[in-house]
């Protein structure tokens, strides 16, 4: 059977939401709720794997659905499709969506509500990666807000350890602030297209600069849209929502937040400047500002790394490291070579897996010990050997050890950016950013040493190790991290054709 005949993207996109509706209407009992959620997210994941297999490695947009009329007078369309970039993000999302169901298995307050919001969140994020229509894209971009707000503010870390309500509100206000500008930018872009105006990202990206008659300078449109992505990514100094939201979110939500929510920003940036491998949505602007944006990228890397170094809360430490790692993505994107863009995408994928796993591990440590303060923990390797080993693998992947996907991704970014001639200082920027790796090795190893490898403490005797379900999902992470680390071509074959027109 031809997979296209079942409208696979629509099915994947709405399966989690359908699961949420089923749970809301039909299922009362907590265990049945969990199983239903697992079932729906599993089917979505399996389908996206099938898409990955069926994907034509020559590149281009595939599994396109629509454009179908949606709001006729505006020319907004229901228009879905993925290229290598979108597909890699879709598969990452469905994987983390499935895993997060199991990560949350032990949540036992307001279980139904929790899974409903979690599933709606997954649909919202998937929509961002599949939409080819700017209005549809924006709609999904915002749909994710309310589930996220609920998940953090209800199931997050309560005082005195956390400030869940504050963090949730901060997250929403920050994102809304960004999307306020993005909306204005999208509308300006829309009216810059020739009559009849269009929201189609494909049409805009293939149109090029002569096709547009800008209503305001293109650079203004670019930055109106860019700022929303920069907040989401996040880029220093717009990152301050991130440590709060990550730290106070429940474990599974941190996994999703770090794993794919940040990627929405990165994904948006790649689309904005690289389109679908052609001119980008706002052509000819990014190059002019590459130096300054790359400078922000380097500051994010170094500031993020330095801030990470001095965290004492395990979860906050991982959260700050995301700022640093997302800096690499930004650097790669704004070097404009095929290799650097591919590397940036690979880094998005890699960070999703690695940081997802790290947050899951922090969740496990916290579950067992009820403690996240690094100085209070110590010597846990004796009491929880499996957790210690997997945490170490995740940590080593995060610092870019070869044979893990972390190495493949960061190496590709650096190689691709170093050989770029996008702006005058590009090599210096790369060298500075590489320093981030050195600091990264420092904070990861130091953290592992303090948490797992000192003298064991008596009070943690008998806290227990990962149980079978937990082992299952953390091993799944490890397998993927190693698989793509040893054989990154699996992903590169899908991703790099997207950027084949770049030098």
């Amino acid at each position, binding site marked *: 059977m031809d997979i296209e005949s079942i409208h696979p993207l629509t099915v994947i996109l709405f399966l989690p939401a359908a699961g949420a509706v089923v749970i809301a209407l039909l299922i009362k009992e907590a265990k049945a709720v969990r199983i239903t959620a697992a079932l729906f997210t599993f089917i979505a994941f399996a389908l996206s794997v099938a898409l990955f297999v069926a994907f034509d490695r020559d590149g281009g947009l595939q599994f396109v659905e629509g454009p179908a009329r*949606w709001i*006729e007078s*505006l020319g907004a369309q229901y228009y879905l499709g993925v290229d290598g970039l979108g597909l890699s993000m879709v598969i990452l999302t469905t994987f983390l969506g499935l895993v997060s169901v199991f990560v949350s298995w032990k949540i036992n307050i307001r279980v139904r509500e929790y899974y409903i919001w979690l599933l709606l969140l997954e649909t919202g994020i998937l929509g961002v990666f599949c939409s080819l229509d700017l209005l549809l894209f924006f709609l*999904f971009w915002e749909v994710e807000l309310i589930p996220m707000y609920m998940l953090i503010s209800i199931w997050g870390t309560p005082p005195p350890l956390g400030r869940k309500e504050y963090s949730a509100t901060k997250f*929403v*206000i920050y994102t809304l602030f960004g999307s306020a500008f993005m909306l204005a930018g999208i509308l300006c872009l829309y*009216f810059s297209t020739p009559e009849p105006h269009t929201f189609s990202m494909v049409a805009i990206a293939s149109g090029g600069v002569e096709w547009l008659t800008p209503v*305001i300078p293109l650079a203004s449109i670019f930055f109106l849209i860019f700022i929303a992505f920069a907040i989401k990514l996040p880029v220093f100094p717009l990152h301050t929502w991130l440590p709060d939201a990550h730290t106070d979110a429940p474990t599974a939500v941190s996994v999703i937040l770090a794993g794919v929510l940040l990627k929405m920003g990165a994904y948006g940036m790649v689309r904005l400047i690289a389109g679908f491998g052609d001119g980008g949505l706002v052509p000819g602007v990014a190059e002019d500002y590459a130096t300054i944006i790359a400078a922000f990228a380097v500051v994010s890397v170094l500031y993020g790394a330095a801030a990470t170094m001095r965290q004492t809360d395990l979860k906050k430490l991982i959260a700050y490291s995301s700022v640093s790692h997302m800096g690499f993505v930004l650097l790669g994107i704004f070097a404009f070579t095929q290799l650097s863009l591919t590397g940036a995408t690979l880094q998005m994928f890699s960070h999703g897996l690695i940081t997802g796993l790290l947050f899951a591990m922090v969740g496990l440590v916290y579950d067992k010990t009820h403690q996240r303060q690094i100085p209070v923990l110590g010597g846990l390797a004796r009491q929880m050997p499996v957790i210690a080993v997997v945490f170490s693998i995740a940590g080593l992947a995060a610092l870019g050890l070869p044979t893990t996907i972390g190495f493949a991704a960061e190496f590709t970014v650096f190689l691709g950016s170093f050989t770029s001639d996008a702006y005058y200082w590009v090599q210096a920027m790369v060298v500075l950013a590489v320093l981030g790796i050195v600091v990264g090795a420092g904070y990861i190893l130091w953290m592992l040493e303090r948490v797992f490898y000192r003298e064991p403490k008596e009070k943690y005797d008998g806290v227990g190790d990962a149980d079978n379900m937990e082992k299952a999902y953390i091993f799944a992470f490890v397998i993927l991290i190693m698989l793509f680390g040893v054989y990154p071509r699996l992903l590169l074959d899908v991703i790099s054709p997207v950027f084949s027109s770049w030098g």
Partner: protein
Amino acid sequence: MDFWLLSPELSICGIALLVILLDLVIEQKKLLAAISVAGLIIPIAFTIALWGETETSFSGMLVVDDFSLFFKFLIYGIAALVILSSVDYISKFARFQGEYYALVLLSAGGLALMATTGELISIYISLELASISLYALVAFLKDSKSSEAGLKYMILGAISSAVLLLGMAFIFGMTGTTHLDEILTRVSELVAGGQLWDTPALLLGIVLMVAGFGFKIASVPFQMWVPDVYEGAPTPITAYLSVASKAAGFAVILRVFHAAFGDPLISGDWAMIFAVLGAISMTLGNVVAIAQTNIKRMLGYSSIAHAGYIMVGLAAISTLGKSGVLFFLAGYALANLGAFIAIIVVSSKIGSDQISDYSGMVRRSPVLALILAFCLISLIGIPPTVGFMAKFYIFNAAIQQDLLWLVIIAVLNSVISAYYYLRVVKVMYLGEPASEEAVPSSIPLRITLAITSLGVLVLGVYPWLVLKLAETAAAIAP
């Protein structure tokens, strides 16, 4: 004389009189509500039957076109929902239940007529028909707050009517006619002859009319009455005021300003007035709403802010802007009615409108809490709700008219508004419930909640259902 064109208004007045008469003989007062709602089907049916007509009658006083029919449909629909949601609220009264329903029907007739006239005097008359009924309705509870609200509304309303009438008088004096189309011809002559700026009385007339209508739509600086009246009035009437009265106000503004002052040489000037007033309205409404602890007052300030958003559509002088106003009003009506009906249900149980008393509502009545949260999210403008689509569409129109600055102010205001709407959601979802007792709701209230919340969702996903009607209506010149 074509009474067919006037059939919706004639029938609604007939039903109002019928309700008053039956009130004398019917003991079971809930029947009156049923009769009113069932009766509303007649004017709605007439409205649908008239759809597509473009006729004037009664020497230009009555203008039946898709534009006015859109508003009639909207206002009668709102009236039906308001009556349904009043049944329980009103049944607590010992007396005057029949009058209540009759007054709602009469004011609906007045409001609908406002959208149907092409002449200044009939605008004024229909406005008074609507207003006088509403003054009585606001004071209907007869406790101190309600009476104060009614008195305040009446005095300020009377002043604004006087101001409006004065403005009309100036315009009549300068143009010699009260018909909008003739005013247009005369104004265009003045403009073409370069005499416009030599006739300050005409400009003063325009400004006074902005003031008179500004009161109706609750725009700054004519918004002072809003919080007190919203808080004191019976909640169904607050809901009614916030959506129907506003809709009719905008209908008249669109009609008068596009028809009589639509000359491109002056339209830019009044559009700028609306743009500035809109920007101030939304900023003031949203900022002050943050400080409110009473949910009705909060929604009062939110309604001022929404008047500001809708004025963005007025400032964008185009068919797109007009249809944006129409669609926004329909979407706002659904979301705001939904929120108010949820408030009616809650306050009839807990007897309070304080936001803090909504604590833990999700555990007492999950569906109700969800609907209220969903309607509030629509008021913020987050998808998948009609509020998002409405804002998107109206901002779209503004960008088309190069009003980027106004759109930026408006979207930033939406961010501010998220703070106070979400605070209610937070209290409902995170707070500890004062008791575990469920909040009961009657069948009529459930029906209205279902209609409004489904409407918010469906139009949020597929707005074209109503948008195409709004566009047809807005395409009617002028």
